[in-house]
C-alpha cells in the first residue's frame, strides 16, 4: 500500500513510509519541484538531495518489497520538514547490523572535510567506482557538497541481525 501523509505536523511537507522505487522517487521529486514554496535555488538543492537519499533507501534497504520489477524497491521512509531557517530532508531504512559501522565511518569522514577536500574525495571515489556501482558513498559526499551542512545519522538496533538507519541533512534558506 502506498500512503502519503501531508501536513503530519505544521512543519512537515511530505512523509511516506513503504516501498520506494524509481517511479515513486520521480513522482515525489516532481511534487517537490512543483509545490514547495521556496526560491528556485533551494528547491533545486532539495530535489537533488531528495533523489540521492531516497535512491539509497531504494537500493540498499535490507528489507525489499518484491514487485514485478527486478531492481530497487527497498522499504523505508522519507520526510521533508519546513523549519524556520532550513528544510530538513530525512530518510530511514533497515540495514544489516554489520553495515552500520561503515555508514558511520563514511558520514564522519564527510562531516570532517571542507568543501575542497570533499570535492577531491568525490573525484577519487567516482574514479575508483565501477560502472555497476550505484554509489551510496559518493551520494553522501554529494549531500555534503550540495548542502554545505553536516550529515546527521542515527543507528538503532532492531534485533540480532538488523538495525534501523536514519539520516538527515539540511538545506539552508539563505
Amino acid at each position, binding site marked *: 500500500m502506498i500512503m502519503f501523509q501531508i501536513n503530519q505536523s505544521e512543519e512537515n511537507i511530505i512523509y511516506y513510509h513503504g516501498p520506494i522505487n*524509481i*517511479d515513486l*522517487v*520521480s513522482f515525489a521529486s*516532481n511534487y517537490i519541484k512543483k509545490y514547495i514554496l521556496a526560491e*528556485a*535555488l533551494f528547491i*533545486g*538543492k532539495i*530535489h*537533488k538531495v531528495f*533523489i*540521492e537519499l531516497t*535512491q539509497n533507501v*531504494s*537500493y540498499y534497504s535490507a528489507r525489499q518489497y518484491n514487485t514485478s520489477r527486478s*531492481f*530497487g524497491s527497498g522499504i523505508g521512509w522519507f520526510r521533508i520538514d519546513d523549519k524556520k531557517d532550513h528544510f530538513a530532508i530525512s530518510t530511514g531504512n533497515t540495514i544489516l547490523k554489520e553495515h552500520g559501522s561503515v555508514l558511520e565511518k563514511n558520514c564522519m569522514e564527510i562531516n570532517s572535510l571542507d568543501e575542497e577536500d570533499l*570535492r577531491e574525495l*568525490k*573525484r577519487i571515489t*567516482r*574514479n575508483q*567506482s565501477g*560502472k*555497476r*556501482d*550505484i*554509489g551510496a558513498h*559518493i*551520494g553522501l*559526499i*554529494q549531500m555534503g*557538497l*550540495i548542502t554545505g551542512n553536516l550529515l546527521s545519522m542515527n543507528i538503532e538496533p532492531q534485533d540480532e541481525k538488523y538495525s534501523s538507519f536514519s539520516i538527515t541533512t539540511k538545506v539552508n534558506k539563505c
Partner: protein
Amino acid sequence: MTLNIKRMKNLIIDAIPDSPYYPEVNFNSETGVCELVGESYMEEAYKYYTPILDWLKEYTLEMKKPITLNLRLTYFNTNSSRLLLDMLDVLKKSQEAGNNVEINWFYEEDDPDVKDEVEDFEIETGLQIKMVPME
C-alpha cells in the same frame, strides 16, 4: 581507386514522459553533434549508458570526424555522473588521437552547484568544457 565511405546509424532515444529519469538522446553520425537532454537518475544507469558509450567509441574510432557533445542535463545523480565521466574519457582519448572534440555544458543559471560539477569533470578528464547558459 576505391572510395571507402564509412557510415554509422544515428543513436536516438526519445524522452519518455512517464519516466522522466531517462534523458533524451540524439547522436547524429552525419553532423557529429550529440545531445543528451533532460534528467538522468535511472536505476542501473550502466545499462542505459552502455549503448551510448558503444556508439561514442565506434564513432570516435571508426569515423574519425569532429564531434560536439551538448549536455543539456538539468539534473543527474551521482551514479549517472560516473557514466558521464566514462563518456568524457572516450572523447578525451579521441582528442589525444588528433580528433576535434567540443563539449558544451548547458546549465540553468539558478543552479549554484553546476560550475563545480563541470570543473570536477575538467580536472578528472583534462578536457575543456564550455559552459553555456540555457535560454
